[in-house]
């Protein structure tokens, strides 16, 4: 038993010494940072149904103006015109050391995928929302609740959607989804 152990010890010693001589262990010689936790923290909840809050005032001109602004802009840094009343361009966040940092507020950039009245450089991944009121609301093909749900979480009626999720991810709040809804269903003059 005792000699057995001794042999083993000698053998291990020999092995480790020889591997150090011949080839260094290279399994840690290069960088492979961990990303799995970053991805995990970046996930968001499953598809969720929402009811448009009673507080949504679809005729409020200020809400429509905010919705328009969110629709056509990517973020507060890129947006050129001044933000409408009730909307900010930058938000202040505190980092770990308590330092206050100014961060550009994210907007919808809906125009990246949807054409609509006055759109510049609109994409075509989503359907055109031009003439939405006349085509979809007045004809009762859609209602504001449908639009609200679609913007808040489009996965509810299309699990494989290419559209962004806007409320369940926490990027926007209910009021901002109301603003967008108000804008989409509003009567827009062709610009």
């Amino acid at each position, binding site marked *: 038993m005792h000699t057995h152990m001794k042999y083993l010890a000698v053998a291990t010693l020999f092995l480790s010494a020889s591997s150090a001589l011949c*080839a*260094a262990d*290279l*399994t840690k*010689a*290069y*960088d*492979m*940072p*961990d*990303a*799995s936790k*970053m*991805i995990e*923290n*970046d*996930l*968001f909840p499953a598809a969720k149904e929402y009811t448009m809050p009673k507080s949504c005032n679809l005729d409020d001109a200020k809400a429509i103006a905010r919705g328009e602004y969110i629709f056509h802009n990517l973020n507060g840094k890129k947006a050129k015109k001044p933000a409408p009343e009730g909307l900010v361009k930058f938000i202040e966040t505190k980092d770990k050391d308590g330092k206050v940092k100014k961060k550009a507020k*994210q907007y919808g*950039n809906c*125009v*990246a*995928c949807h054409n609509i009245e006055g759109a510049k*450089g*609109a*994409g*075509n*991944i989503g359907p055109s929302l031009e003439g939405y009121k006349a085509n979809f609301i007045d004809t009762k093909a859609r209602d504001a609740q449908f639009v609200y749900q679609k913007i808040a979480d489009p996965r509810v009626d299309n699990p494989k959607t*290419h559209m*962004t*999720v*806007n409320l*369940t*991810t*926490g*990027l926007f709040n209910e009021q901002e989804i109301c603003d967008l809804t108000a804008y989409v269903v509003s009567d827009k003059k062709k610009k």
Partner: protein
Amino acid sequence: MKKTLLSLAFLSTMAMLQLNAGEQFAMSDADRAMYKEMLENNPADIYVEEGGELFEKLGDEEALAKFLGVAEKELPKYIAGFPRYVKKLGNVVGLDQVLQAMQVEQGKEKTKLKSGKMFSMLAYVKSLANDEVLNIDVNADEHIKAAYALGEKTFMTARGGRGLSCNSCHSADIVGQVLRTQPLPDLGEVAVAGTWPAYRMTKSSLRSPQRRFQGCMKNALLKVIPIGSKEMVALEVYISKLAADKKKKMAIPGLKR
């Protein structure tokens, strides 16, 4: 010759954009003139040259072939099959990680994966395989199989502030549709693995494939994950397969918008 072909292909794409899309695309005549001029002299060539000089210090092709355990004349073909499982590194790795391991083995300081120097070296080493058909074999062993599966999962995972995945914008069913002013590319057809590192004109710099993935993550508000992570290498495996399936050839350095 190769360069002329590449340039021709690029020019015709530009011309197509101009013809089909008219004003929809955000490119001014001044930009177009600049691109045309760049084609005659891909700015990436300087970086590739720099990469070659750095690589020489590691002992050139001979040393790389020896490190990877392949015959020198097999090296180009072997390079066109990365990322691979490299037994002595214990993981599926990119060529940039192989270069780091060579540096460490030779007692040299390791170049950061996200540095311009590494992008240059990577471009040089990948350019040794130019004209080879991309040949990644995602069934070669259990490790690469797992990496491919992780790559697919990473590609499909919706996350971030807008709840998007790579697949939201790069699935087969929306290729060619327009996001803002950009047509969505087919990542296999444009042969990402065979054309990056590329000189990115909108960024005025040479960028590696994984650096390009980070660009999309940042734009689409997906948390940007680090170069060299298992998930990044896996994404490269997944996207390399798309081009290998189409028998695309290596043409490094690329020149991109």
